[in-house]
């Protein structure tokens, strides 16, 4: 079993839809949770960072963490074609080593 499971998709939605992305994890020692966005042929770009259960909002993006269920989510509201990318969840405990999900490829259709 992988430490971090993420549905690779692909996911295709119409412009303006809500995109919902999820990851589950097995290591209860993970304390820090991140979402990265990776455009084709680019390096991952940090989108959201959180370390506590609950919701964190940043513009159209909401990150949700449920440590009791070992489940994290990213929601993108009012999706735009520019949101088309691969989204990677990542997690860490105290040693700075990130464990990544497989990434979900999202296409937002104009």
């Amino acid at each position, binding site marked *: 079993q992988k430490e971090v499971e*993420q549905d690779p998709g692909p996911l295709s939605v119409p412009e303006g839809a809500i995109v919902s992305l999820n990851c589950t994890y097995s290591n209860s020692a993970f*304390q*820090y949770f*991140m979402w*990265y966005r990776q455009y084709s*042929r*680019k*390096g*991952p*770009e*940090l989108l959201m*960072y959180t370390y506590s259960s609950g919701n964190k909002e940043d513009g159209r993006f909401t990150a949700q963490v449920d440590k009791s269920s070992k489940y994290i989510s990213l929601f993108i509201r009012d999706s735009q074609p520019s949101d088309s990318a691969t989204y*990677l969840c990542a997690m*860490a405990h*105290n040693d*700075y*080593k*990130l464990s*990544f*999900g*497989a*990434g979900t490829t999202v296409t937002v259709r104009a």
Partner: protein
Amino acid sequence: SAVISQKPSRDICQRGTSLTIQCQVDSQVTMMFWYRQQPGQSLTLIATANQGSEATYESGFVIDKFPISRPNLTFSTLTVSNMSPEDSSIYLCSVGGGGTDTQYFGPGTRLTVL
């Protein structure tokens, strides 16, 4: 966040040769990391490079295959040695976010081994 550059951005190499990838950061950072991203796969940590000490390699990665240098707080290199087609991948460096567990990534080096 730090601005990170990598050279080369891409290369095509013959099997049995070696390639050195450079990573330059615009500010001093304590921790630098090297990752591999194979086609259609997620990122796998190769090693952690701290200035003034030997790199720490993850399981499945060895120094003879992936020697790393970290001569100062803004620069690191990763060499992929004695390459085979299985080494075809994107190699990414990242730096620690400073006091948190976030990391910021460079643009990557796309390597193809024939």
